[in-house]
């Protein structure tokens, strides 16, 4: 259950291999209705049927937010991951029927901003592609700084450069280009908002530097979806459903509940949105809190758990679901 909104039935219209790591997918609706428009930064959850295992991964929308003919996402292959991106890369072909969620935005633009400073690393470019399209329509000021490993892996770099010219700055790691962050943080007009999406280390570097340079947290925005980490199998007692389930090593607690027929809420499935927050009744052992949602105090007290990304080891875990 993802609170109310019905799933959108789609068919894969196009799969484009941009480079050895990244493929782009286009979905069009099969029920004849227009796709909803959305706000730049929104994601959808794509449902996959991987030989009987249901996988549901969030991906940022990168198509034009006003385009009601289809949705586009880009997926980076993660060979060490749990299999969602591998499934998308190896099995999803044009013509396949799938289901996606309605768009949800956890990384929205602050439209009060006098200027938008966008900082992307690697596949973190995708939400910015939609945001820039929207900012261009709205006539807002923006500038993109996009850091990527090499020209070969720089999906969309040339395309964005040709669309937005001087407002796009590309940095290639293998050519020792670095985002001149300190300089960028110095020269922005009052009322600028900063947005960062990319690897964990990069987000921490950008946000930390900005705060040290006197930027208030309310002007800083970031998005990082966590892939649910793999681990050891563990047992969980679901108090409200009167069931005890086992969470497999490559499965998340949320997925294990769904597989057991328990209806649990979610929106992002990546530890960011807070929708799946669940009370813990009893915890003899320790919870690996992998989310960005709970406060350090909540995590320490083991009274809440985010089943989309967090795991457990110990004797007994009883949760209110």
């Amino acid at each position, binding site marked *: 259950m993802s609170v109310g909104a019905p799933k959108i039935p789609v068919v894969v219209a196009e799969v484009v291999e941009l480079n050895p790591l990244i493929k782009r997918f286009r979905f069009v609706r099969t029920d004849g209705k227009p796709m909803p428009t959305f706000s730049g930064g929104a994601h959808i959850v794509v449902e996959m049927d991987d030989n009987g295992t249901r996988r549901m991964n969030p991906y940022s929308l990168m198509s034009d937010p006003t385009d009601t003919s289809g949705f586009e996402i880009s997926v980076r292959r993660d060979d060490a991951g749990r299999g969602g991106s591998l499934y998308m890369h190896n099995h999803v072909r044009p013509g396949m029927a799938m289901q996606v969620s309605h768009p949800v935005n956890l990384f929205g633009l602050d439209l*009060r901003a006098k200027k938008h400073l966008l900082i992307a690393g690697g596949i973190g470019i995708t939400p910015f592609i939609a945001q820039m399209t929207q900012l261009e329509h709205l006539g807002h000021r923006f500038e993109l700084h996009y850091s990527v490993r090499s020209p070969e892996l720089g999906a969309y770099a040339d395309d964005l450069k040709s669309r937005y010219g001087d407002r796009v700055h590309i940095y290639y790691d293998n050519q020792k280009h670095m985002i001149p962050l300190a300089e960028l943080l110095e020269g922005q007009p*009052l009322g600028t908002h900063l947005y960062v999406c990319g690897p964990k280390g990069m987000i921490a570097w950008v946000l930390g530097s900005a705060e040290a*340079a006197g930027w208030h947290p*309310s*002007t800083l925005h970031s998005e990082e979806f966590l892939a649910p980490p793999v681990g050891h199998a563990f047992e969980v007692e679901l108090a409200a459903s009167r069931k005890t389930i086992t969470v497999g090593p490559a499965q998340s607690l949320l997925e294990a509940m769904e597989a057991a027929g328990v209806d649990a809420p979610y929106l992002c499935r990546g530890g960011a949105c807070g929708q799946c927050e669940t009370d813990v009744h009893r915890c003899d052992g320790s919870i690996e809190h992998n989310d960005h949602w709970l406060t350090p105090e909540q995590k320490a007290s083991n009274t809440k758990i985010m089943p989309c990304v967090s795991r457990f080891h110990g004797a007994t875990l009883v949760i209110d679901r």
Partner: protein
Amino acid sequence: MTNSVLEGTMRSRPVYGVLEPRPGKAHLIVADGEGAGAVVDLVARAGETAPAMLARTHIIYMPGPNGTDAFESLKALGAAQAFRTHDYSTAQPRLKKVLGDAHMGLQIYTTGTEGLMGQVLRDVMEAGLPAQAVQTEHRGSTVRRVQCVHCKGITENVRTDPFQCSHCGLHLFVRDHYSRRLAAYQGVNIDAEDPGEVPPAVERFK
């Protein structure tokens, strides 16, 4: 809604803190009356970093509604710029120019009366910075700036509750409901349902 005269603090009432030096490329301080004391304390808290901070600090000061004028104590700090004006409307063009030229990393501090701090916050928000980014500290008079919800006129330095609107003349009671955008509390006619039955004015704000 308008006839609830419940005492106690409403959740729209601003909460003020204590000014703390924060890293930034420049510092802008706007204070009135007793707020000068908070500025002196702020600089003291900066300790060893005070000279570097003051070299990039711009202070705008005006006397408080009760007449307190402590500008000399601010001038003595040795900030890069220290400017005294007689009221907010005179200070406003200077503040707007400073905000218009400013860059991210500017730290903004305001201290003194609620009326001053509210107006600074309003003008900073108009310049594009979220209100949370501004530090505030209340010092001195607790007189209020109140908007008459009926005629929209603002009466400055309200001391009593109820009071008479300085524009339309209605007798208003002062709600704790506060608008950041107007930098004012809300005044509502107290004798609408029983014309002429106005309770005696009590000095609530000094």
